[in-house]
Structure formats: structure tokens, C-alpha cells
């Protein structure tokens, strides 16, 4: 029996099926991402686990017990919202302490655990600030601390990094992964960012139009996409003789598919090529090893593994 089980979960808004027959088993301590474009049903799924949205059909079980029978306030889940939803009138320490207060934890114990959790997210020195006085990244950490301090059975993350700039997002990904591995909380992340899902998760659930397209470890989903949608959503892809080939698997060769370079873009650690061939436009990514590369307009031949 899995730790968290979603069984044939459905949600209809009027005639629109937001979530359609979702079945998923999550093991204890696992980090699972729900990945898909906006409107694919991933956020609705998260809200059904949290209890903010009632499913139209199906079951959710946590440690074998029916979770739908439990009120949202009694589910004991830690949630980090996209907007962080911090309490603006409370200090950082009061924000983090709120959940413990609701659990009836004694004052001394509360202070100790709030301190520990703020240290964990690197905000020990900011306990007495108000949320408005913090940067986006710091607010994000407060939201994470507030969710973790209650020792939740599951940590739910709703697009937690989407409001941060690219560089900070990368740093927070690494940190989030370290913290999650450290405390070992079972985590479900909702995101539309495939890089984020692949960087953080043990397994990803690719969703489209309310249905599951593929469930698997990031590497497997990337290398062996079950559907064309997964192949496209998880990164750039070329359709070569009916097979999907990733751009980084295509290389320049002395013989093979002939073509001419349409555009060449330098991106620091790699080159991005668009090649006109008889079979259509092919995208090629080559590592920048400091060697001379074909210029725009040059005639080239393409080879790829598996061909």
C-alpha cells in the first residue's frame, strides 16, 4: 500500500472535466511533480488533496485512510502557495508559529521549533521582520518554513518558484531539494516548468487536459516519452522518420541527411542550430568545445544515434 493514493480522481466544473480519471500512488518520502500546461488540471488536483476543492468522483487515501472525510483544517498538510499567502500583519516568527499555535503546542516548544525551522531555511536573522520588508526569495522561504514547521504528513507546493527571477529560481531549486531530502517529507509539486520538475522530482506526472500522459522518473520520461505531447512538453524534439530525436542527439557528420544551416545561435555553453533538410526543419544542439562550427548558409550532413 502506497503512502498517498489518488484513485480515479475526477473533477467537473459544469460540463468541463478539469481532472479526468487521475490515478497515482506516492511513496513515503517521495518527491512527485504534477507537470503540465495551464488548465491541465494539476492545480485542481493539488486543491483536492488540500481539501479546498471537492472531487466529483474518486478517492484520496493517506496511509490507507480516506482523506476526503477529513476537514481541510484537520488534514495536517503543509502548503506553499504560488502567492506565498503570508499573513502580512504578523512578523516572520508569528507567521511560522501560527500553525503550531493551532496545534496547541506549548509556547516554549513553539519558540524552539520556529527558531530551528527559520535556521533551516536560512532566515534566522529575520524573525522579527514583517513579510513586506522581505525580498521575494525570502518570502518564499518563510512560506516554506511555515509549511514545514508543523511537520506535515505531505508538503504541497503550488508553483512555489514561479514568482522568482531565473537565477534565484535555480538557487531555490537546489535549496528546496536539499531541504526536502533533509527532512524527508513526502512532497507534491505543481509546476508548468519542465526544467523545475526534472530538477527536483523523483517522479513526474505529465498531465494534459485533465488526463495523465505519463508517470515516471524525469530521465525516463525525457528519454522515452510515452506520447508526442510528453516529448514536446519535456523539451525540444525533432521528428526523424517518425521517431522523436532530441536536438542534442543530432550531430554534424561527413555523410548522412544533407541540409543547410538556416540560423545559428550562440548560447555560451552550447550552440543552437536550425537546419533546412529534405525532411523539414531540424533543431540541433551542440556543446561548445571551443572548436570552429558550421556558419549560417553552410552545407552540412546530419547523423543521430539510433539511425
Amino acid at each position: 500500500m502506497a503512502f498517498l493514493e489518488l484513485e480515479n480522481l475526477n473533477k467537473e466544473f459544469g460540463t468541463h472535466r478539469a481532472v479526468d480519471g487521475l490515478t497515482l500512488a506516492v511513496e513515503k518520502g517521495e518527491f512527485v511533480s504534477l507537470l503540465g500546461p495551464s488548465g491541465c488540471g494539476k492545480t485542481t488536483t493539488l486543491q483536492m488533496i488540500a481539501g479546498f476543492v471537492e472531487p466529483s468522483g474518486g478517492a484520496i487515501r493517506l496511509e490507507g485512510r480516506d482523506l476526503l472525510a477529513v476537514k481541510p483544517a484537520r488534514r495536517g498538510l503543509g502548503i506553499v502557495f504560488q502567492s506565498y499567502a503570508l499573513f502580512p500583519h504578523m512578523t516572520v516568527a508569528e507567521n511560522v508559529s501560527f500553525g503550531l499555535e493551532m496545534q496547541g503546542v506549548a509556547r516554549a516548544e513553539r519558540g524552539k521549533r520556529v527558531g530551528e525551522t527559520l535556521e533551516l531555511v536560512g532566515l534566522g536573522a529575520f524573525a522579527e521582520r514583517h513579510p513586506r520588508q522581505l525580498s521575494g526569495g525570502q518570502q518564499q522561504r518563510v512560506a516554506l518554513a511555515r509549511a514545514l514547521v508543523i511537520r506535515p504528513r505531505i508538503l504541497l507546493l503550488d508553483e512555489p518558484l514561479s514568482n522568482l527571477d531565473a537565477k534565484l529560481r535555480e538557487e531555490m531549486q537546489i535549496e528546496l531539494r536539499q531541504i526536502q531530502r533533509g527532512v524527508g517529507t513526502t512532497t507534491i509539486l505543481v509546476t508548468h516548468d519542465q526544467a523545475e520538475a526534472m530538477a527536483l522530482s523523483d517522479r513526474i506526472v505529465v498531465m494534459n487536459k485533465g488526463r495523465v500522459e505519463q508517470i515516471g522518473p524525469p530521465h525516463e520520461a525525457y528519454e522515452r516519452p510515452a506520447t508526442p505531447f510528453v516529448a514536446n512538453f519535456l523539451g525540444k524534439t525533432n521528428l526523424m522518420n517518425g521517431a522523436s530525436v532530441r536536438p542534442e542527439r543530432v550531430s554534424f557528420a561527413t555523410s548522412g541527411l544533407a541540409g543547410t544551416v538556416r540560423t545559428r545561435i550562440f548560447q555560451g555553453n552550447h550552440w543552437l542550430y536550425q537546419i533546412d533538410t529534405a525532411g523539414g526543419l531540424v533543431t540541433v544542439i551542440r556543446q561548445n568545445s571551443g572548436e570552429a562550427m558550421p556558419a549560417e548558409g553552410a552545407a552540412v550532413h546530419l547523423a543521430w544515434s539510433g539511425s
Partner: protein
Amino acid sequence: MKSTPYLLALPALLLFAVVVIAPLGMTVALSFHDWGQYKGIEPVFILKNWKEVFTDSYYGEMFGRTFRIALLVTLITAVFGAPEAYILNRMKSPWRGIFLLVILGPLLISVVARTLGWALLFGGNSGLVNKALMSAGLISAPLPFMFTETGMVVALSHVLMPYMVLSVWAALQRLDPQVENAAVALGAGPLTTLRRIVLPQAMPGILSGGIIVFALAASAFATPAIIGGRRLKVASTLAYDEFLNTLDWPLGAVVAVLLLAALVTIVVVANWLVERRYAAVFR
């Protein structure tokens, strides 16, 4: 040019000076003039009028009543208006639009018409509600409403309610819609969420609404004039009577200036306290 903004502001500034500052200055000056039944107004500088207002308990009673009514109206609009705004904020369209119109509707009707409406409902034996209650046998004598402080407080609360609702609603709209869910997820019940999360964030709206309602209630004229009449005067109707009935303009000027000064002081201090209290939280 550096002076351009000042030049552009000049016409409005001139208008402001002519229609607001000048009459105010003249009213202040008037309050120091002498007046007699037969000699009229004499442009001299005396403190007689001010002394009279400060020593005669009649005026103290007027001002006491004015601010007592204003305070009660502020409390009542806060107690009823804040929940009203919260419910309004949680409504979905089209209901939200419809009920917003219901709340704002009274603002589209003249204060006089609205107050006369109350008089029709509760005025003496012929008042509609009084008649109905008496014929139903629930009361033996008409409920006192006209010429009572209760009547003034009720009518003013009704008239000023939209200002409180709009002010609280503006504060609630800044609320993150997920913030209540966040509290619930952390184990808070509905009442705890309201008390610990929603109310503190609505507080700046309630306080600024309170300042507006207090100022309008203390300086209201039409409603106290109709409900209170000559028998139950407040500062504004008192000033009116001194000007237009007794024709003692200098004494009326003292009352008017005193009311203005008291209001400006209260509003400025209250505003300063609110801003200082919430500076760190809401910027």
C-alpha cells in the same frame, strides 16, 4: 522649467484660496466681533463670544451630544458595515455587482429624502412602522424616534453606512485570496481565521472608514435638522440657528470654528495613530 508645476497649480490654488481659505478666515475673524440685538455686528476684537461658549454649559451639552452621536454612528457603521463588506467581497458576480448597487443606492438619493423616509416610518402616531406595530398589539404607544438621539443615530448610521462599507471593501480587496486557505491548512477554524487573519487586515479599512464616518456624522446638518429639529440641537444645527434665527453671527461663527477645529484635530490625530500603528505592515 522648474516653476512649471507651480504655475500649473496656480489657478486651482487661487480658486481654493478665494472660495475656501478666505471665507474661513472671515469666519474666524467674525467670531471675535461684537453683536447686539439693536446695534448688529460691530467689527471689534473681543473674546466675549468665546468666553460664553466655553463657560455656558448649554454649549458644552451641544458639543457633547454632537460627538456622542458621531461616536455611536461610527461604532454602529463599523459593526454592521465591516461584515457587510466581507460578505460582499466573497460574493460572485453577478450578485456582487447587484448588492454593491444596493449598498451604494442610498448615495444616489438626497440625504433629505432619505431622512424624511425615516420620519415617515417612525414619526409619531401616523408613522408607518409605529402604526403597524401598534395595530399588531406589540406596542401600546408609538416608539419614540423623532426628536430623540436614538433616532438621529439610526438615521445617520443608515446615511453614512456606504462610506464604511466601501472603505472596508477596499481594504479587503488587497487581501490575498489564498491567505484564508493558508490559515485553514494550518489548522485554523473559520472563526479563528476571521479573527486572527481577516480582521487585522481589514482593520486599516475599518479605521479609515471610521474617520470618514465620524467626520461626516459630527458635521452632518440635514439629518439632525429633520430628526432633531429645534428641540434636540447638535453643533451644526446650533450654528445654523445662531446665524439665521438669532442673527448672532459672531456666536454662530464661534460654534462653527470650534466644530471645525475639533474635527480637524480628531481626524489628524486619529489618522496619524493609524498610520503609525500600521506603518510596518501596510506600506
